């Protein structure tokens, strides 16, 4: 039972991280119907920025609380800036081009960002400092859950609630929903579509950065390649839940996190990634619209 609980919580943590990344995918897809391949790279850049800033500040002799605060802020700001720039360079000129072009451009951007970090930094795994402190009250349960896992689950929940409120209640959220439904019509009623798209990229990148720091500090090491697999898996999660839907992304991520966790815990850990991909193929075959998505038929 204890082993089950451990796997359950491990899966929940995993799922929470996937959810933070999947949100960016799902929001961008909802608005411009593009799989933002570079999203995983944005997450990786967030983790790298946090690591660099934290190391510099620690070296300069700043206290640990200040380091954590500034590292988080820097990572989020930089990731958002990267997300914004990527959209301006690689996607905006292609907004009216065939979807295949935008997709290839996205792949190119992903390839570029990965190699940019590889060349400017290093190809080795870098140890990542544990930015999350050990809480006193977790001590008695430390064999099943760590404090970083608690922080991950809590922050994902908070981000999720804030995001739902943003989309449901604010004016920006309304503009986003309008753009997602019909870009031209939204433009006609005075929505600044370009700004809405930029905002979406910025929000998605910021949540990805948060996910990046949390997972890096949980796992304890990063390299330039972490974004790729995480990005693909988060995409699987987004598709599983029904791409374009925010609650769907969260549900899909949790389902994926649990299945992966139980699979590796009870069956075998060699085929963990195979399993995730197989899962994706099966979902797309049997339920292409995802768990919470609506299937829409194309009309002429």
């Amino acid at each position, binding site marked *: 039972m204890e082993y089950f609980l451990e796997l359950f919580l491990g899966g929940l943590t995993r799922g929470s991280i996937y959810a933070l990344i999947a949100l960016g995918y799902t929001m961008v897809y909802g608005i411009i119907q593009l*799989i933002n391949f570079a999203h995983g790279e944005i997450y990786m850049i967030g983790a790298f920025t946090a690591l*660099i800033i934290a190391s510099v500040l620690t*070296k300069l002799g700043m206290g640990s609380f200040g380091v954590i605060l500034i590292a988080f802020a820097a990572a989020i700001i930089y990731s958002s800036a990267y997300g914004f720039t990527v959209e301006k360079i690689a996607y905006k*000129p292609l907004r009216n081009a065939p*979807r295949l072009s935008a997709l290839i*451009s996205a*792949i190119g951007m*992903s390839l570029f960002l990965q190699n940019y970090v590889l060349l400017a930094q290093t190809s080795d795994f870098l140890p990542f400092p544990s930015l999350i402190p050990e809480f006193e009250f977790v001590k008695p349960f430390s064999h099943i859950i760590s404090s970083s896992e608690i922080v991950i689950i809590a922050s994902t929940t908070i981000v999720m609630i804030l995001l739902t409120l943003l989309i449901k209640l604010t004016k920006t959220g309304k503009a986003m929903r309008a753009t997602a439904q019909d870009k031209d019509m939204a433009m006609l009623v005075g929505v600044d579509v370009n700004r809405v798209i930029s905002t979406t990229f910025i929000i998605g990148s910021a949540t990805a950065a948060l996910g990046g720091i949390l997972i890096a500090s949980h796992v304890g090491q990063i390299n330039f390649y972490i974004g790729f697999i995480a990005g693909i898996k988060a*995409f699987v999660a987004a598709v599983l839940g029904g791409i374009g839907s925010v609650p769907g992304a969260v549900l899909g991520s949790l389902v994926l996190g649990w299945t992966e966790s139980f699979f590796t815990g009870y069956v075998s850990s060699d085929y963990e990634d195979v399993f995730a*991909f197989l899962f994706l193929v099966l979902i797309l075959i049997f339920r292409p619209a995802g768990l919470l998505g609506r299937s829409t038929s194309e009309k002429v």
Partner: protein
Amino acid sequence: MAIYILVKKLVKLKEIKKSLMVSVWFMFLTFPIMVIRVNTVKDIIEWRWKNMALVGVGTFVFSFLWRYFLEKKEMGDHDDESDEKSKVGLLDRIRGDKKLLIPCLILLAVFTIAFPFVFSLYQTNIMATCLIYIVIALGLNIVIGLAGLLDLGYVAFYAVGAYCYALLNHHFGLGFWTVLPIGAGVAFLCGILLGFPVLRLRGDYLAIVTLGFGEIIRLVLENWNAFSFGPSGIANIPKPGFFGLSLSLRWSTIYVYFLMVGLALFTIFVVNRLKDSRIGRAWIALREDEIACQAMGVDKTKTKLTAFALGATWAGMGGVVFAAKTTFINPASFTIWESIIILCIVVLGGMGSIAGVITGAFILILLPEYLRAFSEYRMLIFGVVLVTMMVFKPEGIISNVRRTYQFKKVKE
């Protein structure tokens, strides 16, 4: 002329201000990653301010070029119609004129035949590799260029072909020529097996599923030690046989080279014929408008499936030759990046155009070989190529000539 316009634009103060903003933005953007390098093991921090200056100057210049080309592209959309005639490329002129075409073909043939005897063994080897890429890129061209299906797991079929030869040879001692059709056939079957469930999906889902499939194949090859010998791969795969003669290294390389020339010619011939066939036209129609195409009575699933399976067949054949040429394979040769390199070749050269794909392969495979100094920047440049090609010239270097009917005025 173009330079003159560029210079005239440069003078404008507004433009300079704009570029300055871009430059500052990028200096800010690249600051943590380009300037600071931390070594967390030794606890050293390296400051590289030089990089910041480079980024600043570089983006300043590039932002001018970027805006200039973007503007030119937008203007080009309008006056494209008028100078369609003058834009007919050198290649089309050669193709159209019999007097030019025949000498050119002869020259090309002589060069191809003389190549391994004039140049060194190393060059011949590289050229053979390049020809393998041409063959598989032409296969991918069927899938992406003609049928418009983005297949990111293409390398899986390449792996299927390569492992087919390696394993059949290892266990049953089958020779190259026996396995070549078997490998192609197995890849074809794999194409159908994978294609059947996933081809109902829309374009971008298809890309992800094929990517997932490619990774599944690679991970299985890596982990299933009993079947594929795991990450250590399979060594001592025999080179292709020539009627049972044992060839020296030099001659076997030359033999592989000519084998590839033959295979490439065969591929070009088949793809060219396919393009104009009934099924080829169905692919192109399906790429342009799926719904209209179905309304015209084209069987969507069957047509897509043929494209997928035929593309896979060529990857399978390429894989068999690859295994025979390198005599050693392991799963590391079949990562997703290999798929992306092949995709790059097709995109750079021009989707759907045979001459374009060949040019793309020459540029992307030969250039990195000769520019060894820049080899670490190879993937970075590939990324840039994909983005810039899509933004500025989505039809590629040598764009596909669309079949059109022209009404000519009859002179009286």
